[in-house]
């Protein structure tokens, strides 16, 4: 037998002999590696999620060409496209699509009509469509289900006050572009109804293009954008990687914000794990040393043990991470396999191994200072070392960073949170000493005062376990708060939103339209505006897409969007340049202030327009900006009114507006529906986030239970001796009950204190990851978190108590 084989066998025997703690070590390491892996992989995972989301909608379509909302040209002819780009395209299907009201019996609902030839729809959705003729219609299964429709039912729609009746001939599963509130009809019939003309098969308002695999989408878009036949149209790449990257950053940032706390927890958990794992190490090393071996032998054996644990844990964590992200993807609605970079497994494992390695080096240095006899007898009874000077230094550092700001805000926030946690750790240690002294002086002696409180004061196992519990409490509070924030965020925005309806994409606006709406509809306020969707804002080198870019009379804007501002708005500070007001969060993320300049791209033709920031809106809806460009003369030729905002208390106004304007190819939107739709979209992302956070909480709950069991493992031989001395179950129960209550009370007080500090810094920490939200936990969140934690603690202590009852007394007292 070679020395290596012997050491390997020794390592294996050690693992075999402590199955309980070995399982805890493997389990905890698996969770830790998984958590690090999730944090490292969050960005690439979200990238894939958004990629597959686009892919699932557009399938083989690479480019969509449609009319520009602000352009007068609304009909596209695909003939030249098929002639001039035939060698680059697999197909180009031209559709005529509109949003309009459909009616079934007495009810009306807003839906999208897709129209083309059946084989063109087949290309988009990979499903067989029946041959169609006349006024026949195919509907999605979700549409049919929602409106209780079956084959043969009739649906009508209105065009120029004429009612057209279609009958359903097929119901197909929702897929890609043909999903939700969508129906399909023959384009030839539809065009004839709309325009009274036939043989318009090359015409439509949307072209879906599938490029050959050898053709670069970006190159194709560049070429076609310069083609005079098509450069008036909006040409969009279905999978926009830049946009996907932006969305991924946005979505990953909150998780990474908690990741800072998580990392802290992981370091603490690893440390307490290390204490448990190396509990018997000095004893074994002492024995080997008396036989003439050096500490390398023991380190090799234990290194092999760790190697086995880490290898198994890394393998398990790969499966666990794959399972979690794909389950998360499933909650988001992705049906593709989501991958993550496997090299992250090595990084995550290396982070754990490096930490453990440093712990081993420190232990080795410590052991070199003591004799083999001292090692083999005294380590188990080593006491917590209280570092008062360290506490004072940490407190002074905290005060320093509170008043002196020399680092970036986000980094300073991370430092302050870490320092505040360290201060509270010190406070905990001092509190325990005070409690111990108080109990010693004033309370009569009991198992609790003799064992529990002394253990709390002296045991390094307990000390570290408490710290782990503390950070887990904080993480749980953060996760619960974020979930609650997500739930209520849109209600808060809805309350600020006063506008009820908007008519967008009015390419031929006349002032008479506003009067017409005021006269013909039951409305309370109508205002015209210039609105651009999805414009790009340039903050120096950084680009941000904003959903709504609104320019109109400022007072009218505030009538429709009741936002507060951080300062009184003074438009004069922008001088001759147009002024812009942006959400406060954008100001924090991009570090801009009032008086700073930014530029914006509105469309392919309207780019690099400079603006001066004159104020910030206080709103959690960070996808809207206001500009006064409508009143700047230099831009009068470029921008014209294209939107009308309407307030009305009559819900029927919506369908009336659609009847009147949808066939002009204006978009009539209900702001409530729009917000709901946007909310649903965000909630979809949040479902994945909440799922991952729930996993996080579950993982840490397991770690929490493990840590309480670590206290048990450190104490079990003492408990065995106490049972032999005659302590009964009732006394143990009382002792553990008091111990759990004391721990919970300390956790409650300290965590509450830290929560208020953490709330202050959390939004700033998220700035590091390019995100900002003002997240404040409510008292109900705090109460539910503490109730949840109390339950977990009670469960863990219950299990602890059972373990004491099942102790193998002889075995425990015989060890060493």
């Amino acid at each position: 037998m070679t020395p290596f084989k012997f050491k390997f066998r020794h390592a294996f025997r050690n693992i075999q002999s402590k199955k309980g703690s070995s399982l805890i070590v493997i389990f905890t390491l698996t969770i830790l590696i998984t958590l690090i892996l999730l944090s490292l992989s969050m960005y690439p995972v979200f990238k894939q999620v958004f990629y597959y989301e686009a892919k699932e909608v557009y399938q083989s379509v690479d480019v969509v060409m449609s009319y520009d909302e602000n352009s007068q040209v609304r009909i596209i002819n695909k003939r030249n496209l098929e002639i001039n780009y035939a060698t680059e395209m697999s197909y180009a299907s031209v559709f005529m699509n509109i949003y309009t009201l459909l009616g079934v019996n007495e009810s009306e609902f807003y839906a999208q009509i897709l129209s083309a030839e059946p084989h063109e729809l087949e290309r988009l959705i990979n499903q067989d469509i029946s041959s169609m003729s006349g006024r026949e219609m195919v509907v999605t299964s979700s549409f049919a289900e929602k409106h209780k429709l079956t084959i043969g039912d009739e649906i009508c729609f209105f065009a120029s006050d004429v009612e057209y009746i279609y009958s359903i001939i097929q119901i197909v599963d929702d897929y890609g572009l043909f999903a939700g509130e969508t129906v399909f009809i023959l384009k030839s019939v539809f065009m004839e109804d709309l325009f009274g003309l036939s043989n318009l098969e090359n015409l439509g308002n949307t072209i879906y293009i599938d490029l050959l695999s050898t053709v670069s989408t970006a190159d194709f878009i560049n070429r076609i954008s310069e083609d005079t036949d098509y450069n008036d149209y909006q040409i969009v790449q279905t999978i926009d990687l830049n946009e996907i990257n932006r969305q991924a950053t946005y979505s990953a940032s909150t998780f990474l914000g908690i990741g800072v706390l998580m990392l802290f927890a992981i370091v603490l958990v690893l440390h307490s794990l290390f204490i448990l794992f190396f509990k018997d190490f000095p004893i074994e090393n002492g024995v080997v040393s008396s036989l003439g071996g050096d500490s390398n032998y023991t380190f090799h054996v234990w290194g092999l043990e760790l190697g086995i644990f880490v290898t198994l844990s890394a393998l398990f964590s790969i499966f666990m991470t794959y399972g979690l992200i794909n389950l998360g993807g499933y909650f988001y609605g992705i049906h593709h396999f989501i991958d993550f970079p496997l090299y992250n497994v090595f990084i995550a494992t290396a982070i754990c191994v490096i930490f453990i390695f440093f712990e081993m080096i420190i232990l080795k240095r410590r052991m070199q200072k003591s004799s083999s006899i001292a090692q083999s007898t005294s380590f188990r009874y080593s006491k917590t070392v209280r570092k008062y000077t360290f506490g004072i230094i940490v407190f002074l550092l905290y005060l320093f960073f509170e008043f002196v700001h020399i680092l970036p805000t986000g980094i300073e926030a991370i430092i302050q949170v870490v320092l505040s946690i360290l201060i509270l750790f010190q406070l905990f240690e001092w509190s325990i000493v005070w409690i111990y002294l108080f109990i010693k002086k004033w309370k009569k002696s009991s198992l609790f005062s003799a064992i529990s409180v002394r253990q709390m004061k002296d045991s390094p196992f307990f000390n570290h376990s408490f710290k782990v519990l503390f950070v887990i409490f904080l993480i749980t509070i953060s996760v619960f708060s974020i979930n609650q924030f997500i739930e209520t965020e849109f209600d808060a925005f809805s309350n600020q939103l006063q506008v009820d309806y908007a008519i967008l994409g009015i390419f031929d606006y006349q002032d008479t339209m506003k009067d017409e709406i005021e006269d013909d509809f039951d409305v309370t306020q109508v205002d015209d505006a210039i609105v651009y969707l999805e414009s790009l804002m340039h903050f120096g080198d950084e680009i941000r897409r904003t959903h709504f870019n609104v320019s109109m009379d400022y007072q009218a804007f505030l009538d429709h969007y009741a936002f507060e501002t951080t300062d009184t708005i003074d438009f004069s500070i922008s001088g001759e340049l147009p002024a812009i007001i942006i959400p406060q969060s954008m100001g924090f993320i991009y570090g801009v202030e009032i008086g700073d300049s930014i530029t914006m791209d509105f469309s392919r033709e309207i780019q690099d327009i400079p603006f001066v920031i004159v104020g910030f809106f206080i709103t959690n809806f960070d996808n809207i900006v206001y500009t006064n460009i409508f009143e700047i003369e230099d831009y009068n030729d470029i921008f014209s009114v294209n939107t009308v905002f309407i307030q009305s208390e009559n819900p029927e106004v919506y369908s009336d507006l659609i009847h009147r304007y949808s066939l002009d190819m204006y978009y009539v939107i209900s702001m409530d529906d729009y917000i709901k739709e946007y909310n649903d979209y965000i909630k979809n992302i949040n479902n994945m986030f909440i799922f991952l956070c729930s996993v996080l909480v579950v993982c840490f709950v397991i770690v929490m239970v493990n840590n309480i069991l670590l206290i048990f493992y450190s104490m079990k031989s003492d408990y065995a001796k106490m049972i032999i001395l005659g302590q009964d179950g009732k006394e143990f129960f009382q002792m553990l009950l008091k111990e759990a209550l004391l721990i919970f009370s300390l956790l409650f007080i300290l965590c509450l204190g830290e929560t208020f500090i953490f709330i202050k810094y959390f939004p700033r920490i998220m700035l590091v990851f390019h995100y900002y939200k003002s997240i404040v936990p409510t008292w109900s969140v705090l109460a539910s978190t503490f109730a949840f934690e109390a339950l977990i603690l009670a469960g863990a202590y219950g299990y602890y108590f059972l373990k004491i009852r099942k102790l193998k007394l002889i075995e425990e007292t015989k060890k060493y």
Partner: protein
Amino acid sequence: MALLVASNLKKNYQVENRTIPVLHGINLEIHEQDFCGIVGPSGSGKTTLLYVLSGLEQASEGSVKILGNEWSEMSSFQIQDVRKRQISFIFQFYNLLPNLTVYENIQLPMILAKDFDFSRIEEVLKWVGMDEYKDYFPNQLSGGMQQRVAIARALINRPQIIFADEPTGNLDQKSGSEVMNLLKKIHLEHNVTVLMVTHNPDNLKYCSRTIKLLDGRIQSDDSVQV
């Protein structure tokens, strides 16, 4: 020939801020073929003397020469080498590794000494009467059996000196006698010098020399013809 020479040996312990002297200038020589028992009341410094003589603890003052070399002048590598090949220990609580079998516990010093002639393990196990228990773990054995395994482990690398710290302190009378007989057998058959700390006056009958300690000083040093 003196295998072990202690001159003016002092040992102090630091407890919190107090210095507690345990050994007060011990002068001692241990010769080849000695079977030396160290006795004395609790706190007299017997175990400390054994640990300092065997190099497990460092002396505060004075010197200890083992097989011609000064402990304090040896590198850690040399100390390990002496422990691997020339001296061995037997402890009151056996100090067996609980996760290794009897066979593996005895194999361990050989692995450390890079001596791979494992056939001797069976021989030594037979010699201490534990050959039938080689696959047992220490916690499956009685105290007497564990101490026999510890003796086998001490013997495996053919040491010149065995340091025994209360080898029968944890055993009943019968097991204690068996252990003492084994030690005597080792001493006689393997020509091993034994230095033993004991509380038990019965054990002294196996010794050729008895050193009595009192308050960290040698009170008497008698050689007996056994």
